[in-house]
């Protein structure tokens, strides 16, 4: 099986998003909550400091509390999203480990095969006979595809 350029590109793009467990919309939501909360707090302080009437100031105090709640909600949502993403990824990793074991007997490396091989989900290419990928489910990869997508060569088998 030769990996298509599209599939490899999808894999590389997915890897680039792995810096943090949040998506851009989730981060945007948290930042909006944080900024809105901060703005409400500053406005409340300015409003309360500019008034000598206690009833008016209590109104500003209530607004400051609302700002604090908005800010805390944004932060809480960020942590919740991140926690769920980490849990989902652990679960996916556990599932794929199980599948890997199931595939070992049916998809062994063809030691006579020419070209490079790639274990999906990794960033290295190997020779077919490399011991690091022995017994693993692999895909065959054109050399030009490996170079084009920045996959590194295995230091052990040095393809």
């Amino acid at each position, binding site marked *: 099986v030769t990996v298509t350029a599209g599939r490899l590109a999808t894999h590389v793009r997915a890897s680039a998003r792995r810096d943090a467990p949040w998506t851009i919309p989730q981060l945007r939501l948290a930042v909006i909550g944080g900024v809105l909360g901060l703005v409400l707090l500053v406005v409340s302080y300015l409003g309360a400091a500019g008034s000598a009437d206690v009833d008016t100031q209590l109104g500003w105090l209530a607004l400051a509390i609302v700002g604090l709640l908005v*800010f805390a909600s944004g932060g809480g949502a960020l942590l919740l999203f991140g926690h769920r993403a980490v849990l989902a990824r652990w679960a996916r990793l556990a599932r794929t480990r199980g599948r890997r074991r199931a595939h070992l007997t049916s998809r062994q490396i063809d030691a006579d095969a020419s070209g490079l091989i790639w274990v999906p989900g*990794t960033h290295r290419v190997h020779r077919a006979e490399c011991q690091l990928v022995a017994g693993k489910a692999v895909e065959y990869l054109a050399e030009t595809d490996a170079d084009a997508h920045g996959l590194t060569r295995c230091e052990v088998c040095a393809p």
Partner: protein
Amino acid sequence: MNVLHWARVQWDRVSAAVCVVLGVIALLLGWRGVGDEALTAQQLPYIISGGIGGLFLLILGGILWLSADLRDEWRKLDALERGGDEYVDASAS
């Protein structure tokens, strides 16, 4: 490890610690400001800036610290998946 390098790598935890310290300072200053004023109308701005502002900073510090923990765990998962002995992509079959 160089302290500056460590601070750059652990920017989120450093920021969290700074926010917590600033939050505690804000709460203390707010408490002191309220204590020094006799009129409620003069105390309320301290409650908003020192009290709620301090809570704001404490919460921000907590969020930064916990998000740093989440990022660490995410990077560990990255290392597991990139380790070369993991079969991650189920669609390979």
